[in-house]
């Protein structure tokens, strides 16, 4: 009505009408509630139902958490304090256990005076992935990204700095030889020579060089055994190592799967299907009990490394599928243009295909990481001290025997904080990619 009035009569008006507030029932909380909660019979029922569910869920939980006792030395002390404060049997959380053992839940048995090391490693990792995750970051950081894995390994496991440096030099040597030969033209020979040089370095020269350097400049951190890793540190180490190490493998698998060579693509398909068809927990069992059967007699490296290897093989199949999606999203014109310019397969892949396909795949990779990070709880089943297993051992001590929910709630909250943040990032990235692709 008002619009018709405005259009038909307005030109006859000689003074402008000031904007008037809408009718009362159309503003503020009332209107909001009418629109969003009680707009129809179905909605009213739903609202009541939801409110009831909410009440049901929070009725016991909130007072229990709110009454929580933070200062106590053991579960029985907690109970005594509770009885004193609220009366016997009143539900009250015993957060004191988290207060007493948060360090174990976060860092496992990592030496108390070295906690800065995993934290610094995490910080370094975050800086190192900046240029990958945010295209706005300065390109020069890429050098840091290349060096980061070695520094992180050194920070976490300690020992002489020169071990990781020698290992890194292997890549440098291989790359240098490859680049030198590739300039002369023969790509296949370059690859072979580069690989050979790197292997020769690692097997023959790396140890003496590391030892030599260590005797000249003994830069070393206190070594930390893998079994000291636990809690969320362990989860992050397994998750991040798994994703980062599986990337190259995943790229190769994805390329192999799209390959026109029958045998190569079939092998890749078989690998991916077998890995994805069997649950992670079975693969972890494999890592724990049967992997040794397939290695030379007497081989024995620690379970964390075995788990990382298994997780890497596992997630490479998933990463391969993510990257295959990225490859498929690339228009065929890109391949044709690369061909027409005379670029070879590997040149085209490296310079044209992968930079674009990987960029499209990043949200998928982040999602894979979230999944893997959550799945690291499964290692508790093979007795690694992930947050779940740490909770169990804390409850196995005489002090904290009767504690149950508090530890799980804490673990769940930390997981939620990590995963939620990452999934938001992934969604943000997807939106941005959509925009840039029109």
């Amino acid at each position, binding site marked *: 009505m008002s619009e018709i009035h405005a259009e038909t009569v307005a030109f006859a008006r000689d003074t402008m009408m000031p904007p008037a507030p809408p009718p009362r029932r159309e503003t503020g909380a009332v209107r909001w509630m009418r629109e969003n909660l009680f707009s129809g019979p179905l909605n009213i029922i739903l609202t009541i139902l939801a409110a009831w569910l909410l009440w049901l869920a929070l009725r016991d939980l909130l007072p229990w958490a709110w009454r929580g006792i933070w200062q106590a030395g053991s579960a029985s002390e907690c109970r005594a304090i509770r009885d004193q404060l609220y009366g016997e049997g009143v539900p009250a959380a015993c957060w004191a256990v988290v207060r007493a053992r948060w360090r174990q839940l976060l860092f496992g048995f990592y030496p108390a005076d070295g906690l800065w090391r995993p934290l610094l490693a995490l910080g370094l990792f975050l800086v190192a992935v900046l240029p990958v995750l945010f295209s706005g970051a300065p390109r020069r950081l890429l050098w840091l990204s290349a060096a980061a894995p070695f520094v992180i390994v050194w920070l976490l496991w300690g020992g002489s700095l020169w071990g990781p440096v020698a290992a890194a030099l292997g890549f440098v040597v291989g790359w240098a030889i490859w680049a030198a030969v590739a300039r002369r033209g023969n790509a296949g020979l370059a690859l072979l020579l580069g690989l050979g040089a790197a292997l020769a370095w690692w097997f023959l020269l790396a140890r003496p060089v590391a030892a030599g350097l260590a005797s000249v400049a003994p830069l070393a951190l206190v070594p930390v055994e893998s079994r000291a890793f636990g809690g969320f540190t362990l989860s992050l180490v397994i998750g991040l190592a798994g994703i980062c190490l599986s990337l190259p493998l995943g790229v190769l698998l994805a390329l192999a799967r799209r390959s026109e060579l029958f045998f190569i693509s079939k092998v890749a398909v078989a690998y991916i299907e077998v890995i994805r068809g069997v649950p992670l927990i079975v693969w972890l069992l494999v890592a724990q009990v049967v992997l040794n059967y397939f290695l030379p007699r007497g081989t024995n490296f620690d379970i964390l490394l075995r788990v990382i290897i298994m997780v890497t093989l596992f997630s490479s199949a998933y990463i391969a599928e993510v990257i295959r999606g990225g490859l498929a999203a690339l228009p065929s014109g890109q391949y044709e243009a690369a061909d027409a310019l005379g670029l070879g397969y590997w040149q085209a892949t490296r310079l044209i295909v992968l930079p674009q396909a990987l960029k499209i795949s990043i949200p998928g990779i982040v999602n894979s990481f979230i999944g893997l990070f959550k799945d690291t709880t499964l290692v508790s089943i093979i007795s690694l001290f992930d947050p779940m297993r740490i909770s169990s051992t804390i409850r196995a001590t005489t002090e904290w025997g009767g504690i149950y929910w508090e530890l799980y709630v804490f673990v*769940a909250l930390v997981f939620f904080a990590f995963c939620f943040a990452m999934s938001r990032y992934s969604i943000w990235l997807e939106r941005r990619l959509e925009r840039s692709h029109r």
Partner: protein
Amino acid sequence: MTIAAEPPRRAFRPSQLINDSRYRGLTIQVVALLLLAGLIAYLGHNLVVNLRALGKDFDFGFLGNRAGYDIGQTLISYTNNDTHARAALVGMLNTLLVAALGCVTATVIGVLAGVLRLSKNWLIGRLMTVYVELFRNVPLLLWIVLVHAVLSNATPIPAEFRGEGATASMVFGVIAFTAQGTFIPWPVWGEGAELLTVVLLLSILAALVWRSYARRRQMATGRPLPVLWVALAILVLPTVLAFLLLGRPVTFDVPTMRETGIARFNGGVNILNSLVALWFALALYTGAFIAEIVRGGILAVSRGQSEAAFALGLRPGRTMRLVILPQALRVIVPPLISQYLNLTKNTSLAVAVGYADLRATLGGVTMNQTGRELESILLLGLFYLVVSLVISGAMNVYNRRIALKER
């Protein structure tokens, strides 16, 4: 006319293996094949050496030995005198059972939550968002354990059902939710039950026939016939009639609290809390992912589609059923099936609540007692692989059907 693929007959030169597109692929594949064969031979050799050194062999004979352990929840008859093979079979069926239950429930929860998340109702929308985010971002293992603990804490123990001062009672007098499981009535097949089954099947068929007849009539004459009520009648009436005429061939074994000894229910079937917990944890967890898929699917069907349908005069319900859903389903179904796949694989977390799935029987107790890790894990892996391949095979068939429709 010369053939380009075969230039003037020149002697074969080794460099052609790398430089000729006809041979290069072959060369690469042969090299890859050799490398792979080498790797397999190396692993196999290690295996043989290790087995010999440990004095073990590779033999599935242990499956025929007496298992000696009991399983709480079985679909087929099993005692601790049965073999490891039968225990494995029990575990396999248990895995499939919880996977099937989980998939159905997850779909219901997921579709509901996905649709409700789009609801204009602020409270419902927010609640569903919280549900989805909470379940997606916390490990499944934790959910399984928590649901199990909540379940056994929230339900009364059997003793509370007994005697004068009973503080708990059965639902409808036939179902008992207890901390030790849910006791439900179970049908007992008497004489004539087969006939009843036949009648039921025939009436289902008849209802379907009526539905298609009604549709054809409407297509032909434009006059709609009542479908729902008639079909229901066809479905229910003959069966009820047959049930009464045959002298009630099917009776229900209702759980009853026994009078003496430790309080427990006799009769009926007990669904263990470990099964229920695993089932609901899997369903809630996977449901959160399905909700996102459903929401995405509905949002993917452009608003223009529903506007066009409204403009043609279709009512919202019809629009949903005839226009939105068929299109959304194409987007929804492939990721949905891969969620089913995930759920099936995730049933292997049953160990957290002690549900006797295949991983717990064959890959747990049996493996531990017989020391046959290689054989057990091989069988375990094969089972999951076969199930996965069957499900993804079904997905491929579906995808192909969709693809055909697009032509």
